[in-house]
């Protein structure tokens, strides 16, 4: 099956490894991701004021271009892009008046006809492929790996665009089980990583990373698995920074789910881009004999 793919800025730059490992996985599953033409930055973080339509232009333009290409669905890897696109889609679905204003403003573009669905790649794996089928493709189960699934915010909230239950999500835990890993559950799995404060308030974000990762470690985890590039940077990189703030603290490796699926399917490790991580994720994979 060919799927129209919306990349966003981050997977093309600082989170290339999410894209390369995701592409390797989808190819191995027999599908094809086709990058959409003329995509633009989604202008990440949904506009939250009632009177502000301007910041819905960028996401809407992407939806229009998907529609132009005759597609009813776009797939994204990035949680924050997915959330932003979904929230704009919802806003225009709910308000014909808002949609008219936006369509009229973008008079160089076709009118948006509300036919596009935005899907997170995790939803595609759960709903269209199925974790049971994914399990059958596992050649090297992640046996003995104790992993905390970390959800963060943007795939779960607000509930109108969530891909799972906001308080007790299970999509990542179910995925981990299908890969043969042991799931380590902690209440911090749905807590914010510190988000964009990582730029101006490093210590604050390092503290968030410490809270989340240390709760995982206390519960017995030797790694964290997540999906969002913002969370990945904060838990991996700011988590490493936290080592200098908290005596004796050591950051554990942080994997994208696409990387762990690729490893469990026995795909080429080069596609995982592990050298871009701050905490080296390879030794644990070796220790557990996954590679």
């Amino acid at each position: 099956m060919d799927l129209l793919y919306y990349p966003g800025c981050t997977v093309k730059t600082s989170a290339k490894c999410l894209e390369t490992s995701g592409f390797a996985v989808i190819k191995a599953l027999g599908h094809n991701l086709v990058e959409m033409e003329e995509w633009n930055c989604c202008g990440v973080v949904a506009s939250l004021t009632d009177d502000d339509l301007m910041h819905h232009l960028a996401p809407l333009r992407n939806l229009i271009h998907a529609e132009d290409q005759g597609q009813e669905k776009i797939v994204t890897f990035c949680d924050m892009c997915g959330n932003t696109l979904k929230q704009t889609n919802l806003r225009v679905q709910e308000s014909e008046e808002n949609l008219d204003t936006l369509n009229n403003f973008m008079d160089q573009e076709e009118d948006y006809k509300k036919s596009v669905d935005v899907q997170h790649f995790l939803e595609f794996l759960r709903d269209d492929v199925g974790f049971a089928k994914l399990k059958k493709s596992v050649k090297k189960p992640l046996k003995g790996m104790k992993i905390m699934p970390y959800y963060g915010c943007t795939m779960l909230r607000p509930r109108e665009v969530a891909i799972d239950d906001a308080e007790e999500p299970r999509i990542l835990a179910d995925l981990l089980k299908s890969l043969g890993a042991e799931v380590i559950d902690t209440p911090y799995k749905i807590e914010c990583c510190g988000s964009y404060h990582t730029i101006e308030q490093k210590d604050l974000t390092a503290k968030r990373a410490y809270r989340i990762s240390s709760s995982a470690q206390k519960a017995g985890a030797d790694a964290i698995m997540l999906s969002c590039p913002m969370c990945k940077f904060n838990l991996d990189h700011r988590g490493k920074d936290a080592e200098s703030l908290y005596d004796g603290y050591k950051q554990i490796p942080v994997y994208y789910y696409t990387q762990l699926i690729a490893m469990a399917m026995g795909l080429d490790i080069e596609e995982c881009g592990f050298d871009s991580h701050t905490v080296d994720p390879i030794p644990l994979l070796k220790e557990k004999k996954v590679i």
Partner: protein
Amino acid sequence: MTEVSGNECREKHELEKIRIDHSLAEELKDLCEEEFFGCYQCGTCAAGCPFIEEMDLTPDEVIRHVIMDKREVLSSKTIWLCASCYTCAERCPRDINITKLMEALRQIILRNSVDKTDMSCITDEELKKIPQIAFVSLFRKNIG
């Protein structure tokens, strides 16, 4: 541990320039149509907020300030610490979207040409590593 961005003196000066013709609740109406006056003051929002330790006003106190028309809420650190995680909005028993209220309060300030971002602390090495979504989010949240 909290670092406050921007120059506080400049901010105070800018805030004083904001004309006060309406009550805060009225001013918020076009930005965020939420039923603040239905707030129980139960504190559920504060209990789940990940930045509560760094905040000078708790989220329920922010609502209280709006109800009482106390404009000093606009000078609080809290509204800039809120990273729109939506936890409070998800849990509020009165279905008040506090996430939206925080954004509306930030917008009152930002729409008066106040710029809250200070990137001088970023090293060249980090510039390459920090995800683009972090920069775009920060600019969207902190620049008018």
